[in-house]
């Protein structure tokens, strides 16, 4: 075998008391795609930041084509041919694609920018790798997937031969993710070498040639994709056998929430139309669909943050008018919003404040907030829901996504809600956290809570929901029982082909 293009040899990095990277060694061959698999906090991002020169390692070295890379110098990494695609894009939304790509690539004091030459180079790279893009489009007008394409093009424009992608699919829809992996494979065929960081088993199996598993800052295993399985990888990654909880059969009770002909218009655009469903005690109703089909307005109407334009909502059999957030909380409806950081918690505030914010009247006396009671409540959530990495008084922003979600679930489930609206509850979480969130949702179901699960994750819906309805272009399909459903039928439902999906259900 020829010399690998990239070698990481015995790299260690310590932050305070934590050893983020502990003697990590790995290599990358030309034209190879390696997935770096690990849970959040396993040290993946630290390792890649060292490689790209953002951090100086305490020990070890990095070699590119056999030559040692000077540590801590991003410019040196760039000129050695390393390109990094960050999870949070380093782009400016008010500048054009070309301007974003060109920044910093020319001598600063040149009297003019060679825009034409740069445009030509960008277009030719874009064509070579099938990354279609309009160089003069304003970046902010592009979709997230297109913006990621710009981020990749930026690295290629700097003549990157080794591309590092940090959780590239975290912000993409399923279709965009598939397209991305097709592009990455094509790049590898053309001689580029790629490392991508991920905690999603499906995608590492599908896209990588080789998988390096990281746990607790150490390399625990390296496997060829063809010689391993999802189950083995999950166990290696978490360090124990992870089993997602299983839904036990149950008999649902009375209908607690019924929606008839619900319609929502926003700015003249029909976002929801003729939506019908009924939610019963002790069941999970799954709403499956590709994101952007009306999930957000649906969740918001039921959470009291958006007014419906038409239709009826019956809560415990009684028709209700406009729901305010206060009404919703008082009615015993728990909410897990899709955008954890934006709507779920206020990052700047402490954990206890976030815990009591939606029930302030219950936690205040004579107009003053009862801090003690709030802290005690937060402590009980932290204990009961295994929220790690924070105390009642510490900032909420410091929590990882999984722990933040446990806090939000805890805040809702501690009050034994009769209804729970959970939107994309496990999105972006690692295996361990997904299992925990799912277990909590099933626990609530067992306790009699009616759960509306809005999700675009097929596995999640199949494993949690008793009945499933698909959401397509603002409409809901008729419900199908989970027992008679499989991935193919769900696919038909999600594409809007409801009659075929229903027929398929009747077939044995």
């Amino acid at each position, binding site marked *: 075998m020829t010399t690998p293009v990239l070698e990481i040899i015995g790299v260690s990095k310590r932050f305070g008391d934590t050893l983020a990277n502990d003697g990590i060694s790995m290599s990358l061959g030309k034209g190879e795609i390696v997935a770096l698999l690990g849970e959040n906090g396993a040290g993946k991002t630290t390792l890649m930041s060292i490689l790209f020169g953002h951090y100086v390692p305490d020990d070890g070295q990095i070699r590119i084509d056999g030559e040692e890379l000077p540590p801590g110098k991003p410019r040196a990494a760039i000129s050695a041919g390393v390109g990094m695609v*960050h999870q949070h894009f380093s782009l400016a939304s008010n500048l054009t694609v070309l301007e974003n790509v060109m920044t*910093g690539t020319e001598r600063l004091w040149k009297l*003019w*920018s060679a825009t034409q030459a740069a445009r030509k180079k960008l277009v030719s790279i874009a064509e070579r790798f099938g990354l279609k893009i309009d160089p003069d489009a304003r970046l902010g007008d592009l979709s997230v997937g297109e913006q990621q394409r710009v981020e990749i093009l*930026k690295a290629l424009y700097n003549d990157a031969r080794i591309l590092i992608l940090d959780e590239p699919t975290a912000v993409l829809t399923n279709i965009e993710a598939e397209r991305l992996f097709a592009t990455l494979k094509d790049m590898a065929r053309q001689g580029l070498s790629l490392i991508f960081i991920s905690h999603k088993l499906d995608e590492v199996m599908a896209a990588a040639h080789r998988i390096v598993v990281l746990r607790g800052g150490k390399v625990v295993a390296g496997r060829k994709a063809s010689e391993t399985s999802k189950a083995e990888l999950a166990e290696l990654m978490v360090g124990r056998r992870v089993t997602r909880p299983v839904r036990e059969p149950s008999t649902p009770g009375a209908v607690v929430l019924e929606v008839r002909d619900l319609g929502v218009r926003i700015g003249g655009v029909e976002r929801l139309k003729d939506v019908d469903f009924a939610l019963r005690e002790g069941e999970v109703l799954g709403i499956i669909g590709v994101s952007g089909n009306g999930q957000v307005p649906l969740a918001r109407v039921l959470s009291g943050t958006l007014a419906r334009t038409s239709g009826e909502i019956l809560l415990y059999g009684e028709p209700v008018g406009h729901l305010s957030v206060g009404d919703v909380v008082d009615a015993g409806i728990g909410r897990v919003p899709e955008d954890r950081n934006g709507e779920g918690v206020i990052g700047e505030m402490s954990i206890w404040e976030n815990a009591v914010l939606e029930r302030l009247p219950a936690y205040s006396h004579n107009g003053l907030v009862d801090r003690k009671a709030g802290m005690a409540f937060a402590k009980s959530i932290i204990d009961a829901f295994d929220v790690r990495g924070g105390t009642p008084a510490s900032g909420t922003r410091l929590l990882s996504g999984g722990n933040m979600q446990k806090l939000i679930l805890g805040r809702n489930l501690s009050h034994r809600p009769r209804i729970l609206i959970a939107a994309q509850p496990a999105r972006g979480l690692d295996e361990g956290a997904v299992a925990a969130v799912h277990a909590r949702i099933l626990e609530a179901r067992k306790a009699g809570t009616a759960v509306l699960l809005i999700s675009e994750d097929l596995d999640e819906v199949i494993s949690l929901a008793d009945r499933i309805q698909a959401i397509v272009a603002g409409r809901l399909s008729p419900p199908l029982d989970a027992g008679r459903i499989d991935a193919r039928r769900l696919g038909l439902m999600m594409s809007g082909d409801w009659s075929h999906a229903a027929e398929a259900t009747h077939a044995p």
Partner: protein
Amino acid sequence: MSVVFDILASAGLWAAILRIATPLIFGTLGALLCERAGVLNLGIEGIMTFGAMIGWLAVFHGADLWTGVLVAAISGALFGVLHSLLTVTLGLSQHVSGLGVTLFASSFSYYVFRLVVPVAGTPPTVMPFQPIDIPALSSLPFIGPAFFTQTAPTYLAIVVALIMAYIIFHTPVGLAIRMTGENPHAAEAQGVNPMKVRYGTVIVGSALMAVGGAFLTLSAFNSFFPTMVQGRGWICIALVVFASWRPGRALFGALLFAFFDAFQLRLQTVVEGVPYQIFLMTPYILSIFALALMARRARVPQALMQPYRRGER
């Protein structure tokens, strides 16, 4: 109507517009440069006052006029260093730092002025810039007196606007400035140092503001008094928004405001029975309307007023 026409047809109006616009052009360009890199510079009002004072003082003590302008520019640059220290290095609130610089620079200029020039009935004067006679052009009928009887700094202001437009949109350093104002983290990832870019733009921008101030004492008038900037700095801050952070439009905006101002001055003298204060207000009211019309489409630099700290997101 004929009154309006008479005013518009007088060469004096157009000459006045350019004269009134000059300090606004310098000030607006200075503020615009800072904001393009993401730093709001509310020190402008004070920096203009100080530039007006120190430039005048230099000339009063025997320096030639251009040296006076240079001294003003250097003083502005120093205030720029101060503002950068506060907002870039220390990452303090840009509003508060800027207002602090304004209060400090305004009072400091009066203090220095009083140290050197004792209280007197009539303030001492200097010999200001004289209109330049441009061969052929200045002697054209109407056009000559209207547009080619300005002093050198006025032409300089227009040239600076054009140069700045070119730099911002057509050079690598201009792109680096814009990227820093939009997303300093992205700039850093591409090898541009956002701290240096912000220091540079705030220093150069503040120098331009001070030159705008010096125009008041070395060309428009011939003496200094502490209240002479009269809110021009704040007008410049508004003009930057009106101009959507584009130097060409900043030039246009400054001229438009100057047009309102010169026009109302002349209207005062010919329209009777209306208190002159009403006319004084009109340029500002019209400016608010113009701002409301123009600025709604404006694209604010995304990182404006956000301190940059390395390694944070």
